[in-house]
């Protein structure tokens, strides 16, 4: 059989399998197998996976078949053992034949890999930054970005002995507050980096998995064919909450995406205005905003109820902590802005949050969980603290 007919045969085998799978499989992932995915590349990857799987199955069937046949028929008592223990021709044959099979696998694999590495000519560029333990997506061309956290209901349900019925939680552990939104039919380039430790951004349906590494910018691309919601997770161990930083990508038709972008731009404009204004913010406004910031940035360690996990080195924000002590406001602002000098788990949020958000979250922490300092922190206080 020539290589050509072999190729045709394997193609038709795929065709058969693909038709079994149907298009529904593209959206509802199998529990047993790799998803075919929703990009041309992911289909190729799936094809390579099935090709090598079947090659292994066939070789396995032959080798194990011979072994089992031998185990049944070449037992003691049935016959005397033979005396042969060497055969150069056989040895050469079972060196060469596997080599040829390997070359047959290496060629299509290399072709796909070359395509995967061609990140040029992107139409949309998105920077993905890994944080402990959330993602940040920056729309480089649009000049805005946001954090994407494990959704609140999953976060509550995943606490030790939460007692919450996980089946009632929407996409338990695979749902976020702010998903990544992208258009279909466009070549999207992802620039991958990290703020702290190494993470890995994985969406099986896109056949994309790339490490985000501090000090590196990795590139990877995807061109999604089918609108839908595609879920994945962080794949590289990144500390305590590695399991709790899912990836959710929503792929939209271009028109929907444009509308979403317009909405976001408007929001950004409002945000910029709020930041620029030097007005005094009310306690209520800051508390409402601060709660949102707290839940997305702080609750993973300090817990939604502010009690922390002292055994893990995540202190409570109540009792005799600085957030409950009216005389220690400056210290509180300092630790949120610059991180802890003694506990590396407390990050420096001055790098990632704006003055308004920091003012809001500090106000929230000082007046929630039973704390009653009555402090109202204004953005300009944070600006002043940054200057120091």
């Amino acid at each position: 059989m020539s290589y050509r007919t072999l190729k045709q045969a394997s193609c038709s085998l795929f065709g058969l399998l693909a038709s079994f799978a149907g298009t529904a499989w593209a959206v509802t992932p199998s529990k047993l197998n790799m998803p075919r995915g929703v990009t041309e590349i992911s289909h190729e990857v799936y094809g390579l996976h099935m090709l090598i799987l079947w090659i292994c199955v066939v070789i396995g069937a032959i080798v194990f078949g011979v072994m089992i046949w031998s185990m049944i028929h070449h037992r003691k008592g049935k016959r005397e053992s033979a005396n042969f223990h060497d055969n150069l021709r056989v040895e050469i044959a079972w060196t060469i034949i596997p080599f040829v099979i390997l070359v047959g696998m290496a060629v299509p694999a290399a072709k796909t890999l070359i395509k995967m590495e061609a990140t040029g000519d992107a139409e949309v560029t998105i920077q993905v930054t890994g944080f402990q333990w959330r993602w940040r997506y920056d729309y480089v061309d649009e000049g805005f970005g946001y954090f994407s956290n494990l959704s609140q209901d999953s976060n509550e349900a995943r606490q030790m002995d939460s007692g919450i019925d996980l089946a009632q939680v929407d996409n338990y552990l695979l749902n976020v507050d702010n998903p990544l939104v992208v258009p279909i039919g466009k070549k999207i380039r992802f620039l991958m980096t990290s703020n702290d430790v190494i993470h890995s951004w994985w969406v099986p349906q896109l056949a994309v998995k790339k490490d985000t590494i501090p000090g590196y910018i990795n590139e990877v691309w995807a061109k999604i064919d089918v609108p839908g919601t595609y879920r994945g997770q962080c794949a590289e161990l990144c500390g305590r909450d590695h399991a709790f930083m899912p990836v959710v990508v929503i792929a939209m038709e271009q028109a929907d995406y444009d509308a979403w972008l317009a909405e976001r731009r408007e929001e950004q404009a409002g945000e910029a205005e709020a930041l620029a204004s030097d007005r005094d913010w009310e306690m209520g406004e800051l508390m409402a905003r601060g709660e949102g910031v707290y839940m997305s940035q702080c609750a993973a360690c300090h817990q939604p109820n502010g009690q922390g996990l002292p055994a893990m080195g995540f202190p409570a924000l109540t009792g005799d902590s600085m957030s409950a002590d009216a005389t220690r406001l400056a210290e509180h602002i300092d630790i949120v802005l610059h991180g802890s000098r003694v506990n590396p788990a407390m990050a420096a949020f001055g790098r990632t949050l704006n003055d308004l958000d920091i003012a809001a979250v500090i106000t929230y922490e000082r007046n929630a969980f039973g704390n009653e300092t009555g402090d109202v922190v204004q953005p300009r206080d944070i600006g002043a603290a940054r200057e120091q």
Partner: protein
Amino acid sequence: MSSTATAIHDHDLHDDKPVGFWRRWVITTNHKDIGTLYLIFALVMFFVGGAFAMVVRAELFQPGLQFVDPQLFNSFTTMHALVMIFGAVMPAFVGLANWMVPMMVGAPDMALPRMNNWSFWILPFAFMMLLSTFFMDGGAPAGGWTMYPPLIFQTGDAFPFLIFSVHLMGLSSIMGAINIIATIMNLRAPGMTLLKMPLFAWTWLITAYLLIAVMPVLAGAVTMLLTDNYFGTTFFDAAGGGDPVLFQHIFWFFGHPEVYILILPAFGIVSQIIPTFARKRLFGYEAMVYATASIGFLSFIVWAHHMFTVGMPLAGQLFFMFVTMLIAVPTGVKVFNWVATMWRGAMTFETPMLFALAFVIQFTIGGFSGLMLAIVPADFQYHDSYFVVAHFHYVLMPGAIFAIIAGVYYWLPKWTGYMYNEFWGKTHFWLSTIFVNITFFPQHFLGLAGMPRRIPDYALQFADFNMMSSIGAFGFGATQLIFLGVVIACVRGGERATARVWEGAEGLEWTLPSPAPYHTFSTPPEVR
């Protein structure tokens, strides 16, 4: 070694074994006693590492967090790996080598007996130090056994203890390796040319060279971690001009030869057992030696296949993909030769043979998934998923550990002078084989369906297979208590073993009485 100070000379012991715990075990230089110490230590660590795995599987039994905090979970996965690799599998192989290599090549003892003592006695201290980290501020290391920076810098007080215990393990391994090379190169009996050596001695010789080549690399890598953390260097810190990926390259330059260190002696054990029970010489002896050497060589140039997702240049990815696929050729040769050895033999299926045959099948399954992992575009999907967990457990657990168990059953009568209980041995085999496959086969599906590794909690679509896997793991763990019972019973007594023990056994070690006398081949045997 003589026991000049002992007044009592018990002739029933056959030999002049030193009396008293201190003299017999602590300051011993006898290769058989040190081999026994290594094997006992490995068995203890096998249960310690196994207990950690039981905690991991208990937490993963169902979704949601039930037993351990995520940080502690990470400590358990990290320590499970370190204990199993450096505490169970490697010392078990060194123990088997200590016992068998001198007898196989006709040597009176290991070439460097005092160093042999030292290389063992480092280990209990290294592991006491490592295990004590569970009680330290910040807990045991939780950054994975691969110790990737920057995450590993978040380790608490355990950090320097982790580094120094790795140094000690490396020291122990290097000394063990030097000893095996020195023994094989210098103490072979007259006429025992290299190409007449049993395959177990051959695979260990090649393994020893791998150890000497790569353990210093690991020591260097972890020392760089130490100086980065405490002395202001920035080898792996991008902010200081360093490179976190550099660590991964160095680590896996150690790590890939390391995985062959964990499997080549297993190849050797199986290559002893299959010919014995097939009553037929090993097929393609020389091809087996050359295949082992090729695998050893290739292991040095494939390291980056552990890190395809870090973003290497295309040329690098292609190189590492092609070379990795190439490993399938010599590995295939070995499997084909084992099958050809069985072919038209006169087989019986005692416990060692059962474990050896299960090794061949299950290791090959792990080899197939390894071949799949070499295909870079597909690896982007498999990498760091449960597919990888299934792959390396297939080659290590029903692979390397099955081979070690096979070796123990095979040589136990030679060590103790008694036959083990065949019924319980076979029971141990069948339960182990059933449970180990229930544990690890479903993990292939979990990984393909998108479950990442090293997570304490998971989405609901992964629940069924995780529960199955946990049940298998509990069953496997409990089954190993049978093994413990069989070994203890065999040490205490049983049917007397003959010198040859097995009808088809060939080689110098089977010319000695069972149990093997305390001192053997004081006068070198002649090998023709």
